[in-house]
């Protein structure tokens, strides 16, 4: 077993198990911490793909910023207590879970049946994963417009957060 495969398997198991923990743990804080672990393992997986910059910002944005916010809110609302049960046991939930499982099986089967490894650009991967390549692409004519527009998403979020939560807004 090659080193690549070893790493992949370890990280993949980590990612899948932590994802399962997110949906199975009763305590919201535990779920949140599992999610952090999941983000970290995804960052590891990005490294196995040689997408170094992606791995870095995965840690910064997800594990850093977003999870901070989530945990903040959980604390804020004093939701540290546990739910009665982690997963609802009802016919509807069973249908939903069943349907999702079948969907997942279909997806995996469909995506792997006809796939051949895409190797066209894999030699490029080392270069493309580097921060400089991302910079070059991001500031090219093509992507600069979506990049500028995405700032509106952030502003809208800021305005929305203020308007929805700030007390005594004028």
């Amino acid at each position, binding site marked *: 077993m090659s080193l690549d495969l070893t790493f992949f398997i370890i990280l993949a198991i980590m990612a899948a198990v932590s994802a399962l923990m997110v949906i199975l743990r009763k305590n919201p804080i535990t779920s949140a911490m599992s999610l952090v672990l999941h983000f970290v393992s995804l960052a590891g997986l990005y490294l196995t793909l040689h997408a170094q910059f992606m791995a870095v910002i995965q840690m910064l944005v997800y594990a850093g910023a977003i999870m901070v916010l989530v945990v903040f809110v959980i604390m804020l609302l004093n939701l540290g207590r546990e739910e009665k049960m982690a997963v609802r046991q009802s016919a509807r939930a069973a249908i939903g879970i069943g349907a999702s499982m079948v969907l997942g099986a279909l997806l995996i089967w469909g995506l792997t049946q*006809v796939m051949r490894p895409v190797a066209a650009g894999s030699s490029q991967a080392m270069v493309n994963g580097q921060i400089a390549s991302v910079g070059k692409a991001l500031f090219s*004519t093509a992507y600069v417009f979506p990049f500028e527009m995405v700032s*509106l998403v952030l502003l809208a979020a800021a305005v929305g957060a203020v308007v929805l939560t700030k007390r005594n807004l004028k």
Partner: protein
Amino acid sequence: MTQTDLLAGLAIEIVSIFALIIMLTDALVERSTRLCETLSIVGLLGGLAASAYAHLTMPGQTAFNGMIVVGGMSTLYDAIFCGAGIMTVLLAREYLTRVGGMFDEFYTLLMMSIAGMMLMGHSADSMPMFVGLEVMSICFYVMAGLMRNKLSSNEAALKYFLLGAFASGFLLYGIALVYGSVGSTAYSAIAAKALSTQFPTLFWVGIGMMIIGLGFKVAAFPFHQWAPDVYHGAPTVVTGFMSTAGKAAAFSGFVGFIAPTMASGVPGLEKAKVILALLAVGSMLVGNITALAQTNVKRMLAYSSVAHAGYLMIGLAAGNAAGWTGITYYLVAYLFMQIGAFAVVGILERENGGNLTVDDYRGLARRRPGLALVMSLFMFSLTGIPPFAGFFGKYYLFNAAIQADLTWLAIVGVVSSVISVWFYLGLVVIMYFREPLGEMEGGEASISSRTALALSIIGTLLIGLIPQAIINIAAR
């Protein structure tokens, strides 16, 4: 990047910059509501002018390395978004002040969402489409919850947010799979490379997921369930805006990737057509039939908007040029009649959620004859009675279906529009032919609300009289 690129994106840039200016105005100026209102209208008119300029000087050109496309249909989309924005601005202050949601941030969010929509309408690549969609959606989540002290508004925002983010996940997955199969996010790559892709399954699952994601945004069955609740709980002006401009934006995104897919000739195209046709059938029937059982006018209109998404999807399923122009025409027509209907609902609504049930509309013709008359016109148009705009919209869409050998789909469309007669004209009958239950308070409209109503009436009639002009612009 060149000057041409900047000029091509000018409409979006103007609206975005005005959004920033309004944000600053809101932050720095005391009592800035009127100023924000004026700035919004100026910005939207500017956007319209820039879009018209682009349509005249560079129709059909692409800019930013094929990221966005200019002129033709995208100009009509711009007109829909800006038009809806202007009417919403005219209606908003009076209504929001009454129901307790008057924050100047409303104008910032409105302008930002319009910028997002315009980006969607112009996009020739799934990347800007996604960004535009998210700008729009995030603004909508907040706008739906704008009456932050009302539980119904909070609930609407929460439901919209959770389901919307969930659907975004599917859209994104679809984009990723299509990207993997054709090697690019550009729509032109779908048309050029999809036929030769080694991974047709990947491609079709991707397209299917994108249909699901955008099907949610247009509120198509079975992804429609958010719409009645959100449209009901959100402030009425926001509902009117979301259900017209929001739907139009989602359809502009839809047409963007479905059109090249239909043109690509990839094996399996028939399956995609079947799916779109079934979504259309489900939306039309479920929307119209459920609307029958509603007692709340806002909810009734919400369900009927699901049905209208179904009519529009007929155009997608047809997958021909007549379908695309039909969708565009219908969206223009729908803008006026639907936003007008919600304007009337908003004018009548009271701060505690009163005057919203069908019973409150009894005998409206005697108490508010003007409002009853315009509401009836909108109802007639929504039903699809000639010569109002709604009739021609349906006509073009059904015609497109027939051209695509989908006569059965057109027939289902006609049948479901017959069902819609019951509740649309039922409301007219109630307004005109029923005794009122008690005294009605409210219903006085300010000058700006009247202007908005007049605009929608003129639009509904004019679009019906000059359908060809709209079709000509769309076909360019």
